[in-house]
């Protein structure tokens, strides 16, 4: 195995490095290219990156450890609200970036563990419904904790949240750097890109580690995993915490980017959306998950951009409700992709096996 890898590594290394370098350059100038078409595309790109983080986090739970989590968005919400509460006029607190972000991550991770604890014994779809419930509980609390003491400001949400600012470098404002005008969304892009890369590296390393293997074992057969001495409780908790902390990072970024959070951004539909990204892209496979997140976050925007113009071009008028068509196409896309690529667009080797290895059954 390793010898084989080493051989290929030296063989194609130049090409691979060139590829990576090229990819890096593309990533580096992407916002400026998109920015030419309008800053809103940079914002779309930023959201795609946020979803990549979320999908990677959920992938740890669902893809690596095999725990179906339908309430994942709760951690995103926790991250976002921590930022909103600690850096906005709501409590008059304006704590700096390097204090708020860790707080958000830690609190999200803590919620991850809290969710994990009561659900450890549950299997498969029982877990799904409990996590779903958990997600709703978090949302409901955020929607209602404006009384008796106003903590979250309820359905009104929290407004005028601080931008991230590092050593006076404010991510929310446009400025000129070395004669180059760089806008707020563009600055956020680089920050998000950096965070995304860190998360990708962490995920990749975890997957190919002792812990990653323990997750695989739990996913494949929990009893056998126990017999191997794996403390399945801790290992599942770890998956929840890791996944949640990535969600927390994404949430904090969301809050500062938007400047506004309200509970309606953290609905069950969002959780389902992120799950779709993970599964459609290729559960358990990091590149696949990234692909899924990017496609599903951009695809609706893309449809929005074309449905009306196409109808106008073809019929000369908007005949069918554009929203209906857009969602209809989205639904069909989900169904068709799953039918033709049940393991996802870019599946991991293991998932592909699951599909072909139909031998045995339950016995």
């Amino acid at each position, binding site marked *: 195995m390793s010898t084989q890898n080493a051989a290929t590594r030296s063989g194609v290394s130049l090409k691979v490095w060139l590829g990576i370098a090229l990819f890096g350059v593309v990533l580096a100038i992407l916002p400026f290219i998109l920015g030419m078409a*309008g*800053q*809103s595309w940079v*914002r*779309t790109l930023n*959201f795609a990156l946020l979803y990549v983080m979320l999908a990677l986090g959920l992938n740890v739970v669902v893809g690596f450890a095999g725990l179906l989590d339908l309430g994942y968005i709760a951690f995103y919400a926790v991250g976002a609200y921590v930022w909103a509460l600690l850096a906005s006029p709501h409590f008059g607190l304006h704590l700096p970036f390097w204090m708020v972000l860790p707080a958000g991550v830690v609190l999200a991770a803590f919620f991850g563990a809290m969710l994990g604890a009561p659900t450890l014994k549950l299997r498969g779809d029982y877990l799904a419904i409990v996590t779903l419930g958990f997600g709703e509980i978090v949302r409901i609390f955020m*929607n*209602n904790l*404006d009384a008796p003491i106003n903590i979250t400001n*309820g*359905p*009104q*949400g929290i*407004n*005028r949240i601080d931008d991230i600012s590092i050593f006076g470098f404010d991510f929310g*404002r446009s400025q000129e750097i070395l004669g180059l005008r760089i806008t*707020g*969304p563009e600055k956020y892009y680089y920050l998000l890109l950096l965070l995304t890369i860190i998360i990708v590296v962490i995920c990749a390393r975890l997957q190919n580690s002792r812990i990653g293997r323990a997750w695989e074992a739990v996913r494949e057969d929990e009893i056998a995993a126990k017999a191997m001495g794996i403390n399945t409780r801790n290992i599942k908790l770890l998956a929840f915490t890791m996944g949640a902390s990535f969600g927390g990072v994404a949430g904090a970024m969301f809050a500062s980017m*938007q*400047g*506004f959070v*309200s509970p*309606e*951004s953290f609905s069950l539909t969002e959780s389902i959306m992120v799950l779709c990204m993970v599964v459609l892209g290729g559960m358990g496979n990091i590149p696949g998950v990234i692909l899924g997140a990017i496609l599903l976050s951009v695809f609706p925007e893309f449809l*929005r951009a074309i449905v009306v113009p196409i109808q106008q071009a073809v019929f000369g008028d908007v005949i069918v*409700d*554009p*929203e209906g068509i*857009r969602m209809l196409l989205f639904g069909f896309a989900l169904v068709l992709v799953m039918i033709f690529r049940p393991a996802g667009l870019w599946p991991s080797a293991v998932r592909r096996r699951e599909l072909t290895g139909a031998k045995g059954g339950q016995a």
Partner: protein
Amino acid sequence: AENTVVKLGFAAPLTGPQSHYGEDMKNGLTLALEEANKQNIQLDGKPATFELVSRDDQADPRMAVQVAQQIVDEEVNGVLGHFNSGTTIPASSVYNDAGLPQIAMATSPEYTDQGYDTTFRMMTSDTQQGAAAGQFIVNELGAKTVALIDDRTAYGQGLADQVAKAVEAAGGKVIAREYTTDKANDFTSILTNIKSKEPAAIFFGGLDAQSGPMRRQMVTLGIKAPLVSGEMTRSATFLKLAGEAANGTYASLAGVPLKQMAAGEKFQSNYKERFKVEPGVYAPYAYDGAWNMITAMKEAGSAKPKAYLPKLASLQRSGATSQNIAYDKKGDLKEISVTIYEVKNDKWEMVKTMVSKAN
């Protein structure tokens, strides 16, 4: 000579369950811009053509920021919208960053409380409306004990809170507070609770999709108290959903009935001619909003935001909805009116208009 193209951004829910409100607003704006284009207005030294750059925010805060950016990218000269509080507020910071004046629909008070100089309204805020409804309940209906229900949306909760304040201020008492959601259609449990406390009136902050069935269930449960609600309930849908039970329901609506508006009849006939349907509640306000902005531009002789913004702030004009349109320091309308309607014989009928001059 070349024309000055004046682009006005517009965003509202144009798809989804609230899209009819968005369409209504959009029609009102379209009417205003078409009129303006016929008037040969000179801006920045050239004849001006007005264009609407319209975007769908799906009533979703996240989308709202996204489309706000798109509108800014289009280099518009000003913004009309959004519709919901949840979308208007986050989007307003994007417009403020770009220095664009924004005239939004009703929304919760926070919109103009942010300290931005670019935020204005087309009609009353939820505070003003809630206050009127609260006063009506206590003073006109004579209900001293009131139960409140809201749907935990930014709109419903905001409105119910204002009503609560107004009720207490008028000497009434809020004796029960219950909650539902904007997706529910079973209210029997909370109504059973309320019934046991025997309030003289029930106020609901939320949509007609809820208030309709709610009213029916009140009757089934034998609750005699009247239902009072906000503008969303003053709809044909409510009448349809509540059926015979609808009678005895009150609703407050910002503004005055078209017939009583300064130039309401004229607006109504123009609108009908142009769009072949009756104007909705919001169309005349949107129409006035657009004219407010255009008037400010005319006064400044320029469509540049920096140039006409002060003129907008000091605007004083007579429009379709009121003869006395002017903004206070925050961007709220100085003179507002709220009308209360009641269902009688299965139809909405006007009860009373309450005009107040704020500040």
